[in-house]
């Protein structure tokens, strides 16, 4: 009888033991979820609301009196950018970027490196009445030597002794520095335009002309629907090929000869996620180029793995090329830890040799 009950007792004990062992995974799952990366592919509801508020420029007239259709208001900053498709234009949403970890670290580095930058920012505010960190909402840069800023510039002031003032168009006021040749303009209370070329007010005047143009055929380099992400814009094939290293001349040549346009959208809310839409004539050449991009990303991931850079390798898991008719998109995510040491936080060769004390590591 005693032996007969032994199996029953053993069954009860084993059942209790199994329940305890299995319950260990109820709260703590056996697998760790990889980081979630959100690639910017379309505007989110907040960006949609923001963009619609920014469309303050009157719609263009219809091409002819008997034309039917609907034309909506336009975003002045996108209109002011040069529309030449062979040029690049990038927009940086400073308001959003200020909140991003990478920008906070870069700003910390910028201000901690030495006091010069801090002084420059303070001096700029004293001199022009503008705080670049508070008053500027977004900045657009065009490779056609033009810089646009949108924000609150009601307090902007230009010393009349140095800056020669003249009006241009309906709302434009151009200031030319007599000493340095710099040309800056304001257009209304919230737009500032700076020429990237000294002694030339032409880029600024052209921008104001575009803003005040009523030509029905006017186009923009960035359509309204493309204003999403923390950084967005268009890269010309020339500029993109220049970004590649000298060892990738073959790929650079392919880009120059095949690619027509590259739309970029970046999100820096946590790690940096980028989507690049590459457009060109449909065919084998573009197909081969997409494979070259895919292979380059795969090689980069393998290199990160062999270098022991687990975080980079993990994020490059998300890297992919999506071919479509006449275009393909490239998704790449870069970890915060990798890019935080770039830009303003890049150590100088001296400090890397240990000759110079590096700035204190910024807190995230």
């Amino acid at each position, binding site marked *: 009888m005693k032996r*007969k*009950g032994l*199996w*029953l007792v*053993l*069954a*009860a*004990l*084993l*059942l209790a*033991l*199994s*329940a*305890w*062992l*299995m*319950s*260990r*995974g*109820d*709260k*703590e*799952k*056996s*697998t*760790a*979820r*990889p980081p979630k990366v959100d690639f910017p592919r379309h505007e989110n509801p907040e960006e949609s609301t923001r963009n619609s508020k920014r469309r303050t420029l009157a719609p263009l007239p219809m091409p002819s009196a008997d034309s039917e259709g609907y034309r909506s208001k336009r975003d002045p900053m996108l209109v002011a950018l040069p529309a030449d498709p062979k040029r690049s234009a990038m927009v940086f949403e400073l308001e959003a970027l200020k909140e991003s970890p990478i920008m906070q670290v870069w700003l910390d580095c910028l201000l901690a490196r030495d006091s010069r930058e801090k002084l420059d920012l303070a001096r700029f505010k004293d001199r022009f009445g503008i705080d670049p960190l508070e008053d500027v909402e977004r900045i657009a840069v065009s490779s056609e030597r033009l810089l646009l800023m949108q924000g609150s510039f009601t307090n902007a002031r230009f010393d009349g002794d140095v800056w020669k003032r003249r009006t241009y168009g309906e709302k434009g006021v151009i200031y030319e520095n007599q000493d340095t040749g710099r040309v800056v303009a304001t257009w209304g209370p919230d737009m500032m335009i700076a020429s990237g070329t000294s002694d030339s007010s032409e880029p600024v005047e052209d921008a104001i002309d575009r803003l005040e143009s009523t030509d029905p055929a006017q186009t923009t380099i960035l359509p309204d629907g493309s204003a999403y992400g923390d950084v967005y814009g268009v890269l010309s094939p020339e500029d993109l090929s220049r970004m590649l290293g000298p060892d990738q001349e073959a790929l650079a040549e392919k880009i120059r000869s095949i690619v027509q346009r590259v739309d970029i959208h970046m999100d820096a809310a946590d790690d940096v996620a980028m989507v690049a839409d590459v457009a060109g004539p449909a065919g084998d050449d573009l197909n081969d180029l*997409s*494979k070259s*991009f*895919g*292979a*380059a*990303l*795969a*090689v980069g*991931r*393998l290199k990160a793995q062999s270098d022991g850079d687990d975080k980079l390798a993990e994020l*490059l*898991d998300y*890297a*992919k*090329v*999506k*071919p479509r008719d006449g275009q393909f998109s490239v998704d790449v995510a870069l970890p915060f830890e990798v890019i935080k040491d770039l830009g303003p936080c890049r150590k100088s060769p001296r400090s890397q040799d240990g000759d110079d004390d590096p700035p204190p590591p910024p807190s995230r």
Partner: protein
Amino acid sequence: MRATFTVAGDLLREAASRRWFLALGIGITTALVVLGFALRLEVVDGALAATRLFGKTVRSDIRSVDVALRFVYRAAAYVLFYGGLAFGIVACADFGPSLLAPGRIEHLLSLPVRRYELLLGTFLGVLALSMIGAIYGAGGFTLLFAVKTGVWTLRPIAAALLASVTFAGIYGAMLTAAVAVRSAALSAAVGVVLFGLGIVAGYRDRLDTFFEAGPAREAFGAVTFVLPRVSALADASADIAASASVKLNVLASQMVGLLVFGFAALALGIHLFEQKDF
């Protein structure tokens, strides 16, 4: 103990002669051969650049080939896990009742073999059978993709073995049911119920919020506390196949827990078996 392995070996021989397992073997082999001929993968510098199935281009992203294969292996792991469990429950439900068939059981008990050795041998035989099936299916699948892409990994096979362990846990209860009532249908029903409840138990921490705090939630917690976490192990199996990082201590605890559950059910079965007169 030798008698236990002899019983297990007999079970494997019996399985080999059954149409169910013959069909499974032919099915897996056919699927692998067809896939081998129909699937074309173009790999460029470590990136999966194009996929063609039955001559048609499958629209897919260009990405690192091992990353692309993760999705394939994950899907295959789920199919192997749940498909294997379902097949095993149906195909193995008859082993217990046929062991206890009148005439056969008396003959077996007249041999120098203990009753617990008979049940343990049957249990281990089924465990071995499920492992052989898992290794053949997952191994063939992995080998096929390894030859086509150059990515060699044992992870899908490890994932399939996890399914075998899960099935062993369920089969322990099925065998005990067969001892209590010599019925293949009841044995299969117990397997199906445990399979279904095990899926629920795997998500018990999330599902308990559907019950109001109080006796209902307590009862749900108590019932699912002792059940095998089938879905949790299926997820872990897929994660292993897809090269996701796995917390080995937690997984090992769940796996051992499930095997112990199988042995607990088996101990109950042995207890019932010892009570019976043949």
